[in-house]
């Protein structure tokens, strides 16, 4: 899993950010210090951990900075360009930019690139590239034109590949995109035409790239909201020829398709990308981390004050412009693994009782990541769908249009009709779209909450949190515990923050109140049986009420709450990301939950197999893990509460006795093993046999 931590603003003073936001955020030669260039006249050096500026430099009135300031890692000096052609080089001690070294060049500069271990490179708007030293030796030298007329550089990046710098820049001309790769060890420039494939009409809104041995993996975020990947070879077979590279879909609809601006993409590591933009059409802009390998949404964070569509990342920090403030959001990404993508693995389930939704076809995961770039990329089902398929499906189309305006009742009917049809291969994405559509309308008119339809959709077993990020949010808002329980049971990829939010609601008093009314009725899985319009989800029963009554120690929570909490116990999580959220739970609730866990633990210990009765109960490991987690997160609080203290004491005593038993058992086991050995030896006492051997 991944997590976005609480961000902090870097500057209290609003930057003079123009409509285009900042020019750039660049690393300086000291760790933790960054050069921020605003769109006007100022360059500020920030120390991120201290959240304060260390220095600020401005150009004269009338001049304008045209290219973000960078640090020359070889000399420790800073370089900025103003008025397209004028280079300024200064160091920390300089105060006035007017008085520092100045060089006027003969052509307009697009960007200056600086990278650790190499001299800075200057990329001109005409596509030529020069080393800084060579340029300073003869500032007025003639700069050749590399790209054609009307071709405009859109984006550029520099890499170190085997100690050599490689520069890539993308140009656009009449809706066509070209990639240029400039290698400095061989001074070769290769040109590639980016073929956009089926999505011809889309406009690329943001680029990001990472490098691997032989390929630059160029990711692009298109106006249709999808992330595409293009593999551009660093060492072309025939550099002279104009070559073509195709792009393939990597993630489908990571931002809402109609977001025209304010979207950005950056590659964090091999398997994670950060995306800036609204997740749903009507939702606020947010920054989210996606796992490209498993196609799961790992974390997201809303930016209610809007953003400029610019995203930088250095080390473990994301830099975004939030409103008028430059905000630093530290993030954490675990190494991508199946377990990591899905959190702590769910315990093995009894065959036939429940299957994890097959929302991702893992088999066709990318085995040949950097194979031939022309070969068709493997198809993944999640979030990828050919547009015509959905067009061909009239039922879904009809349903989608119904959602836009009809009443809940009508939608339900349409949905039943739709679900009756045999599922198509892209069934899950269609379901995802339907849910998004429903949620979109819910957002627009809060009174519209198609609970039954949503429940029905969840029970199709194809939904996941990544597919409909807003669903649980909406359920949380409505405190719809039944829906949340269902989601917890069905979704394999719920972020820890959401799990914890569910836990908070489950432990809150709202659940308790409902109990008063329902207690008299026959409870099934903590819910009224009649309330369940689908028989699918009633398998999870923690403990029958009559069982609980027979126990000497009674269950501290009502069966309904117990069922909900069991859903939490079953959910997947990574400790690292769960712990910070657990700290936010109020102390009384922690106590209650602990009481319940302690009760379960006692129950478990009653039989030899250490299991709980009932279908699909929480396992001892889950219970113990949660006790540990809760205590880890809230120990200092819990020890202060008298009743919790008592609980802790009895828990401690019980665990101690269990440990005692285990150690004694261990001793016995050793003795038994010795006995067994003796026994074997006794058998081997008959160390004599007569065998027939044939020699040839």
């Amino acid at each position, binding site marked *: 899993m991944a997590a976005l931590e609480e961000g902090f603003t870097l500057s209290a003073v609003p930057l003079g950010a123009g409509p285009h936001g900042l020019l750039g955020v660049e690393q300086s030669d000291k760790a933790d210090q960054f050069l921020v260039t605003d769109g006007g006249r100022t360059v500020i050096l920030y120390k991120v951990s201290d959240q304060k500026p260390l220095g600020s430099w401005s150009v004269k009135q009338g001049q304008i900075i045209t290219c973000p300031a960078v640090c020359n890692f070889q000399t420790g000096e800073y370089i900025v360009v103003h008025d397209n052609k004028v280079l300024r080089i200064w160091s920390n001690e300089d105060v006035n930019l007017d008085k520092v070294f100045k060089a006027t060049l003969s052509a307009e500069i697009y960007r200056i690139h600086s990278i650790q271990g190499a001299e800075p490179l200057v990329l001109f708007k005409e596509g030529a590239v020069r080393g800084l030293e060579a340029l300073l030796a003869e500032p007025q030298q003639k700069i050749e034109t590399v790209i054609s007329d009307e071709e405009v550089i859109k984006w550029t990046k520099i890499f170190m590949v085997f100690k050599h710098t490689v520069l890539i820049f993308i140009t656009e001309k009449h809706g066509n995109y070209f990639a240029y790769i400039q290698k400095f060890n061989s001074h070769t420039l290769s040109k590639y035409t980016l073929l956009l494939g089926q999505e011809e009409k889309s406009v690329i809104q943001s680029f990001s790239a990472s490098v691997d041995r032989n390929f630059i993996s160029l990711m692009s975020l298109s106006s249709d909201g999808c992330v595409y990947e293009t593999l551009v070879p660093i060492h072309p077979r025939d550099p002279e020829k104009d070559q073509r590279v195709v792009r393939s879909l990597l993630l489908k609809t990571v931002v809402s398709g109609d977001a025209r601006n304010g979207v950005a993409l950056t590659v964090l590591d091999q398997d994670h990308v950060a995306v800036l933009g609204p997740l749903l059409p009507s939702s606020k802009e947010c920054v989210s981390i996606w796992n490209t390998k498993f196609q799961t949404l790992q974390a997201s964070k809303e930016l209610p004050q809007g953003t400029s569509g610019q995203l930088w990342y250095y080390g473990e920090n994301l830099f975004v412009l939030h409103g008028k403030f430059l905000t630093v959001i530290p993030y954490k990404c675990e190494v991508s693994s199946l377990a990591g993508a899905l959190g702590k693995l769910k315990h093995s389930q009894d065959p036939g009782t429940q299957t994890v939704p097959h929302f991702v076809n893992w088999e066709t995961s990318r085995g040949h990541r950097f194979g031939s770039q022309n070969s068709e990329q493997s198809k993944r089902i999640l979030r990828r769908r050919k547009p015509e398929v959905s067009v061909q499906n009239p039922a879904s189309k009809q349903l989608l249009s119904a959602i836009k305006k009809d009443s809940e009742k009508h939608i339900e009917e349409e949905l039943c009709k739709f679900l009756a049809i045999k599922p198509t291969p892209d069934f899950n994405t269609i379901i995802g779209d339907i849910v998004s559509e429903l949620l979109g309308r819910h957002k627009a008119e809060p009174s519209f909450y198609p609970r039954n339809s949503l429940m029905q959709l969840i029970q199709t077993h194809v939904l996941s949190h990544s597919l409909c990020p807003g669903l649980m949010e909406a359920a949380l808002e409505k405190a719809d515990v039944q829906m949340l329980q269902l989601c917890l049971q069905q979704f394999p990829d719920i972020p820890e923050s959401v799990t914890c939010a569910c836990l908070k609601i489950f432990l809150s008093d709202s659940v308790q109140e409902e109990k008063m009314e329902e207690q008299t009725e026959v409870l099934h899985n903590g819910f009224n049986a009649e309330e369940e319009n689908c028989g699918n989800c009633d398998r999870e029963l923690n403990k029958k009420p009559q069982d609980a009554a027979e126990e000497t120690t009674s269950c501290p929570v009502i069966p309904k709450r117990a069922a909900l909490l069991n859903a939490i116990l079953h959910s997947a999580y990574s400790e690292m990301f769960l712990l910070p959220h657990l700290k936010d739970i109020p102390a009384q609730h922690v106590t209650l939950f602990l009481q319940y866990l302690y009760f379960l633990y006692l129950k478990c210990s009653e039989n030899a197999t250490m299991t709980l009765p009932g279908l699909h109960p929480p396992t001892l490991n889950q219970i113990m893990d949660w006790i540990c987690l809760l205590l880890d997160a809230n120990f200092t609080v819990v020890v202060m509460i008298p009743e919790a203290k008592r609980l802790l004491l009895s828990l401690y005593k019980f665990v101690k006795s269990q440990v005692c038993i285990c150690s004694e058992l261990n001793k016995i086991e050793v003795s038994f093993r010795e006995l067994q050995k003796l026994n074997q030896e006794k058998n081997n006492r008959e160390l004599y046999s007569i*065998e027939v*051997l044939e020699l040839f």
Partner: protein
Amino acid sequence: MGEFKVHRVRFFNYIPSGIRCVAYNNQSNRLAVSRTDGTVEIYNLSANYFQEKFFPGHESRATEALCWAKGQRLFSAGLNGEIIEYDLQALNIKYAVDAFGGPIWSMAVSPHGSQLLVGCEDGSVKLFQITPDKIQFERNFDRQKSRILSLSWHPSGTHVAAGSIDYISVFDVKSGSAVHKMLVDRQYMGVSKRKCIIWGVAFLSDGTVISVDSAGKVQFWDSATGTLVKNHLIANADVQSIAVSDQEDSFVVGTAEGTVFHFQLVSVTSNSSEKQWVRTKPFQHHTHDVRAVAHSPTALISGGTDTHLVIRPLMEKVEVKNYDAALRKITFPHRRLISCSKKRQLLLFQFTHHLELWRLGSTVATGKNGDTLPLSRDADHLLHLKTKGPENIICSCISPCGSWIAYSTTSRFFLYRLNYEHDNISLQRVSKMPAFLRSALQILFSEDSAKLFVASNQGSLHVIRLLEGSFKHLHTFQPQSGTVESMCLLAVSPDGNWLASSGTSAGVHVYNIKHLKLHCTVPSYNFPVTALAIAPNTNNLVIAHSDQQVFEYSIPDKQYTEWSRTIQKQGCYQEAYRPCL
């Protein structure tokens, strides 16, 4: 070839004794190993690690130190306070000299091989001069206050390091006085132990003294200043042994945890001349204490309480990747401990201090290849014969008819007559065995059990006729003139006409028993003979050597057989791994 009923006997419960000392001789590439029961074994590392000689043990002779001196002379010293020299030809003890210092804990031969130093219980270090036929006490060094557990000469022969309890002394050999006394830290993992025993010291030519002690430390001392230079804590238990290579670029230590550590002198950086000792490789081939280690030019040798002798070749030193490059673990003695009575289906097992007689089981069932047949009668333990006295049994034999058992110790020869009456066995000792039979190395009965052949350690071969309950000395084959090499292996032809005998290096002699004279001598071969047998009918002598070669020699024709010649040309026995025994 045919189908055989194979009796799989796993009840020979022989447990070898633990290894106490090892001593490597560079000139002859031989390794002397002493065990806790006092046995000393000589391994020929050039001959495929064959155990070519052994000296039977003695209960009172616990060997604590073993070393080679100039001219392939082997000395041992032990807790009975005696220094013993072994006769490697006659395979007996040449002489024993009491050092008069109480139990001897350590011994070291001077670099020139002419002086012998022993460290005693009373804290004395005694210097002996090695004379051509004996050793001569010369003088005592300054007496120390506790026992001397380890000794090491400086390669120049001028100084000696002696490890005691809690300290190491450096002696000047000329004056015999202690020049330095280096106190060893008693601390062990932060806890003060009662005493720190210096189990081993090694004196390097640059003046460095390496010590290993009971606190698990390997320490480097500067003998000129008497200061500690470097300290390696390598074990939680005692480090019990140390051996340095001749080049002084690597050494090996053994710990009580069964681990052997290899230290090497390596450059600090890739092309600097400054070198330092680095612990490079740990080896865990032992389960118990590694009491002794040795360092040959190409291998690390270790042995200990778990009775295994482990020879671990250093891969970087081995040029040819053949058997020599493989790890060797030698556990059992390379000699015959079992003899068999074919007629009565009896097995005689030889242990250190007793013999066991077992009768094999039988079956009436038949089966095909690989079947285990049901037993109609299980194997029986018939007899447990204990030796008198402290000496170990050297060799034993049961006659083919099962009526005679003979065994020998260093000082006596025993012959027993067995009588079988239904299930009862009675044992009757034949008295007044002649004294010249003692210390026999090999005993063999003829096929008809009428003759007894005894190979003595003087190189002679005695033929004795057995009568009902008595015996008669028939003849003695004297060794060839000039050789006193003892005979280790005997084989008699089933028709009773021929007797083949072999020592460790000279050729195989074939005697005609009818005429009691030497028939012929099979030419000697580079590798020692490991097994001998004469085939029935053809009277072809089959000889196996430790380099895994098998020869067939026709006794009547006095020449190698055609088959043997073909085999030698083709060399088809290369796949066999273990030496033939």
